[in-house]
């Protein structure tokens, strides 16, 4: 049985996006079954426009150059890759309701669900991570 990795993404900066998508794509490429639950600011990471211009945390702007120099993939690229590798992206319904967002405000191919949808997957996960 494939290893299962469950990730909760609840923060919305560029750094958070890299933490989430790097681990998710690496795990998926290692034949793990991966699901990410995006909640609160974490929804930025899959917002159609938002995920293309995620903010760098205040005072850390100087990292921008480092990102360029190390040739790290862009967040939109990582999102595409995650989808290609069958990573399950779950948007939190309750947060979306609070923020007045609909499924079409997000990148294509996401699922929308409540906490139980994620818990159902996480119940027998081998690795659970929160970012």
């Amino acid at each position, binding site marked *: 049985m494939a*290893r299962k990795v469950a990730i909760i993404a609840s923060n919305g900066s560029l750094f958070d996006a890299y933490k989430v998508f*790097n681990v998710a*794509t*690496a795990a998926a*490429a*290692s*034949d*793990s079954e991966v699901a990410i639950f995006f909640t609160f600011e974490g929804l930025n990471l899959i917002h159609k426009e938002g995920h293309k211009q995620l903010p760098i945390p205040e005072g850390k702007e100087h990292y921008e150059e480092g990102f360029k120099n*190390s*040739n*790290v*993939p862009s967040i939109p690229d990582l999102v595409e*890759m995650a989808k290609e*590798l069958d990573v399950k992206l779950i948007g939190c319904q309750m947060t979306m309701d609070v923020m007045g967002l609909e499924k079409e405000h997000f990148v294509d191919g996401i699922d929308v669900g409540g906490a139980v949808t994620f818990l159902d997957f996480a119940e027998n996960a081998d690795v659970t991570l929160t970012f």
Partner: protein
Amino acid sequence: MIKTDKVLDAKGLACPMPIVKTKKAIGEVEPGQVLEIQATDKGSTADLQAWAKSTGHQYLGTKEEGDVLKHYLRKASEAETKEESSYPHVINNDELKTKLGNEDIVVLDVREPAEYAFSRIPGAKSIPLGELEERMSELNEEDNIHVVCRTGNRSDRAAQILSEKGYKNVLNVVPGMSEWDGETEND
């Protein structure tokens, strides 16, 4: 130059791209074939070893050439994980160890060149299983041949081929290099 079946250029790419690309590339080679991954990401050595462990493929080793790391992976095949042996004349690793240096024997290593390059029994002769039929003339029918691979499966097939062609003194070494704790050499 180590002979491989496919080369993946992941130079200049940062984590997790070398792994993601490797995952795709391994899908494009046949079981038993060797994939070379060229990367400049310094974390890729540890990552690929861990990746191989979790996916069941065989990590052969890494060579450094300037800034470029060349990693070698061999795609796992189901047949090899099955313990199946039909050639009746076998010898175990320990028995072979005591013979080395004391008896006039030929150690024939039938693994892929990349596997042979990273670790082999000193003095072993390399003929990959796939080339055995055409290169058989490099062996004498009277030679005392000890065939070795990683787990004893490819060498089993090689031993059968040799004995069918009239080679009289052929032994299959079991299990082979996967558990070899004697001396080794490499390129």
